[in-house]
């Protein structure tokens, strides 16, 4: 069900972008999100395909998952998942690190077809 809310966000953003960049159709939507977000390209494409809006109903969706960011409360270092073993700070080895950003899903890029 949350896919409907995601698609609502896509429709809204595409509407606004259409005012600035004149285009007919969106070919591809690239979404970036965190490793745990429930974002599925197939589900989004399915919902988009049911839109009456010709601009979006054939758009392909790709989802790129990026790692979360940690913040070490001991030495204030910001680091990524792959720099760390089980969240330990790679510099001071403190375990007092917190997940700082889980990367809420956002539209990274749109590939569109020009009006001409």
């Amino acid at each position, binding site marked *: 069900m949350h896919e409907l*809310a995601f698609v609502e*966000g896509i429709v809204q953003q595409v509407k606004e972008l259409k005012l600035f960049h004149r285009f007919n159709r969106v070919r591809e939507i690239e979404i970036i999100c965190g490793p745990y977000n*429930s974002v599925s390209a197939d589900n989004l494409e399915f919902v988009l395909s049911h839109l009456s809006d010709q601009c979006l109903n054939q758009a392909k969706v790709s989802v790129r998952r990026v790692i979360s960011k940690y913040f070490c409360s001991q030495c204030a270092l910001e680091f990524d998942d792959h720099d760390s073993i089980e*969240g330990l700070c790679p510099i001071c080895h403190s375990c007092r690190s917190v*997940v700082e950003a889980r990367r809420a899903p956002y539209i990274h*890029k749109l590939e569109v077809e020009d009006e001409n």
Partner: protein
Amino acid sequence: MKINVMDKLLSANDAWAEENRLLLRKHGITMLNIIGSPGAGKTTLLEQTIALLGKTIKMAVIEGDIATTKDAARIEKMGVAAYQINTGNACHLDAHLVNTALKELINDVNPELIFVENIGNLVCPAEFDIGEDGKIAVLSVTEGDDKVEKYPLLFSEAEILVITKLKLIEHTNFNLAIALAAFKQLNKKGEVITVDSCSGEGFASWIDFVQDCVLVHKIAECFK
């Protein structure tokens, strides 16, 4: 042609969540978002919390359910104001739905603490910021110790994991150590509390946590 966007998919929801946060700060209210599966024991946890804290903290509850007002009726029976949201078939509460309830409860009750009991679901409610001060993950021992790993978003986001139905653990193959290790792997700062809402076991820690949440916000108010 390619267009760089870099805009959140749920930006409309996030704007409402921000409005909820402003509303909560303005009235000095703490809001905790309780998320767990259907039958995890969310309403029973609230009933026991009201029984223990209802006289010291002015509370209200926003109940989210697909259908019926059964949970709101249970809360009101305990003497606490409840606002039932029936989503029809939506699997989560969003910030706009909560905003309507929030305004009404502030107007009618002006509470210090609002619990939002989200729709029973471990997936969708975790995706939506409703402007809460913290997410409370509720997991019962009857659900199995693998749920933390299976639904990582909620457990990585939660301020605290409350494991319920502790008295039933001997009748299940729930391994507390496995669940705790999985939670710590995902969430370095989150606390874990084990409770049994029917017997009241483990409630001292949970009540301390709730009181601390309210106190922290009251102190923050003083420094505004």
